[in-house]
Every structure is written in C-alpha cells, then in structure tokens.
C-alpha cells in the first residue's frame, strides 16, 4: 500500500462485509481443467512419440505434420504449458517470500512457458503447413 490512506481504516476493515470478490479461484479451476484435458492429450502424445521412435527425419517430419497428429500435439502443448505455468507459480509462491526474488521469478515463469510453448507450436505448424 503505497497510496496515502484517506482515512484511518485498515484495508481489511474497508472490504469486510462486502462478500467475496467473485474471483480468486481462476487458477484453481484452470489447474483442474487443464489436468483433465492433459490425461487424454498426454496419452495421445505418448502414443505419437512411441510410434516415432527410431524413424528417420523425413518420416518423423511427415507424421508430425499430418493433420490429426499436429492437432493432438498442439492441443497437448497448449494444455500442458498452461498447466505448467500455474503449477510453477504455486511452487514459487509457496517457497519464495522475498518480493525482489518472487516477482522476477513469476515473470520469468510466464515468459518461459509462453516462449517454450510457442516454439513447440511453431515447429509443429511449420511441419504441418510445409513452409
């Protein structure tokens, strides 16, 4: 609270009695939503990876770029990376209490998951569109 207080009431005192803000459970719900999605998508991705073991580059590139495989892989990556960002945020918030470390780590977490996730999606789409 850097703003000058306009009165003597505490922040808690000012909001008490108004009920919940009807938010704050977003991450909880999305963690479970992505967890549910991750189950079939992970099974699909594992089957795809197993079927690609030992194949040469041309074959792998062709199969990864085929429509059903590319769709499953992109959905898998979106759901997993979203889930990952929430999970790592919970870990950081649980163990890092020093604000000078906590906020940079939270920012880094978002940057890492978006950068890694988009790199993976870019690769699959490029294979799929053949550009």
């Amino acid at each position, binding site marked *: *609270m850097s703003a000058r207080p306009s009165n003597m009431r505490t922040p808690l005192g000012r909001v008490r009695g108004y009920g919940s803000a009807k938010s704050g459970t977003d991450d909880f719900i999305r963690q479970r939503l992505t*967890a549910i999605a*991750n189950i079939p998508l992970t099974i699909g991705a594992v089957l795809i990876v197993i079927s690609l*073991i*030992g194949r040469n580059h041309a074959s792998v590139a062709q199969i990864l770029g085929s429509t059903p495989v590319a769709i499953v892989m992109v959905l898998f990556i979106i759901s997993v990376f979203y889930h990952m960002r929430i999970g790592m945020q919970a870990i950081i918030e649980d163990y890092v209490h020093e604000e000078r470390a906590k906020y940079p780590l939270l920012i880094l977490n978002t940057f890492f998951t978006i950068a890694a996730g988009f*790199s*993976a999606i870019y*690769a699959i789409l490029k294979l799929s569109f053949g550009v």
Partner: protein
Amino acid sequence: MAEAKVPAERPLSPHLTIYRPLLSMMMSIVHRITGAALYIGTLLLVWWLLAAVSGPGAYASFQSAAASFIGRIVLFGYTWALIHHMLGGMRYLIWDTGRGFGAAEREWLLRANLVGSILLTIILWVVGGYLMGGLR
C-alpha cells in the same frame, strides 16, 4: 505499513520435520517434484520438435543425444515423472470429488499411483525398445 527490521522470534506451526513420514505426504511431495521436473523436461520436447523442423542434421544430433547412455537415463526418468504425475493427478481429481478418503481407499490409491507409474514406464520402454529395433 512499516516493516520490522528484525522479525521477532515467534513460535511456528509444526512443519515437515515434526511429523512421521506418511505415504500420502511423501506422494504429495513427489507429485510436486515430478511436476517441477516435467517443467524443465519440456525443454527436451521443444528441442525434439525444433530439431524435427530444422532438418535431418539437427534431428540426427537430437537422436544421438537421446540414444546416448545419459540421454536414455534422462528420458526414462522423464517418462516415469510424466506417468507418475499423470496418475497422481487422477488421484487428486478423484479426491476433488470428495471420494476415496477412507483409510483403505486412500492407501490403495497411493500404492496404485506408485506401482502403476513404475509398471507403465517399464511397459512403455519395452514397447519402445521393440519399435526401435523394428519399424523404420
């Protein structure tokens, strides 16, 4: 709000060190550790996909790294972490519905999580090993 320079020595609520290790507690810790490991492990997934898109040379170097002794150990650990975290997630989803909290069901779910993750990992690697020798 001014911050005290030296935090006062206050009694803390009991933490990990005071409890007898329980299976549910250890599995909760392992769930978090496997989650964090998978987070780092996605770099392998990104490497694999970028290698596939970069061309035969890049893909060959990924393949030789993955097939190396250290590569296989890392990938085996990654497989186990993935399966363990997925089965653990299913356990938590069951618990989210309010079911499975009785002593017997709880212990069964925890054991099924652990044993299932090891068995499934071995099965996947046996299948993968066969494909490695066969298909092309």
